[in-house]
């Protein structure tokens, strides 16, 4: 299944590794920040409504 990358294996696998880590971190960070912002706003809105 794994293609024979020959003498370029290190470069090709590193390129895919670096890219996937960067994309994964970006997507994970974006969702985490979105969840935090949603929770923060909900908390402030509840406080200002009841306060």
């Amino acid at each position: 299944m794994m293609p024979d990358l020959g003498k370029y294996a290190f470069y090709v696998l590193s390129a895919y590794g670096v890219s996937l880590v960067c994309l994964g971190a970006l997507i994970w960070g974006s969702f985490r920040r979105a969840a935090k912002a949603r929770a923060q706003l909900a908390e402030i809105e509840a406080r200002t409504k009841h306060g």
Partner: protein
Amino acid sequence: MSLWEYANPVKFMRMADRILPVLWPLSAILLVGGLIWGFFFTPDDFRQGSSVKIIYLHVPSALMAINGWLMMLVASLIWIVRRHHVSALAARAAAPVGATMTVIALATGALWGQPMWGTWWVWDPRLTSFLILFLFYLGYMALWVAIENDDTAADLTSILCLVGSVFALLSRYAVNLWNQGLHQGATFSVDAETNIAPVFWYPALAAMGGFILLFIALVLLRTQTEIRLRRARALIAREVVE
């Protein structure tokens, strides 16, 4: 229906909520499909060997690094001319996405350059303008964080975005403007009759589609986040005054 309707944060949030559930799976299918297709099911290039597989990451990420900045330019111009907060926040939201794309393009370029050119880096016009574009991304994000007042930050970052656009365009056309350096001309072109061989072109097209949709999805999600954070800051400020 007018495009300017979405300058209203509530309408923008609703529109993003409707689009995102479709956009995420579509971008995942195209991106993962394109990369699997390119990595596992395409032959080696007769000259570059298996290193050609880096093309499915390098070209789409470079495409989005440049076009991400150009999207920020349009959003910044809308802010400067029409003072729509959503456009300024969309530009802010796009910067980390574009910066990540620039990092991927630079890293994959170095990893491709070493076996093909014999060097990780060279001060070639395209590479140098791309590095400067990355520094502009960093400066842009730092400026947003450094200024407390949102409107002032939007004004100043918009000006920075206008200046940085010179380098975004240079990184695209440097090869044509200075006929020197190691980097080749554009591999893909919409006006060229033939691109690269179809066996490489179709998976690359899928990967590019995936990167474009992922960029749009991330910018929509992050813009929603910026709108929520802005509202939270406004409510806190009102609390303090009362």
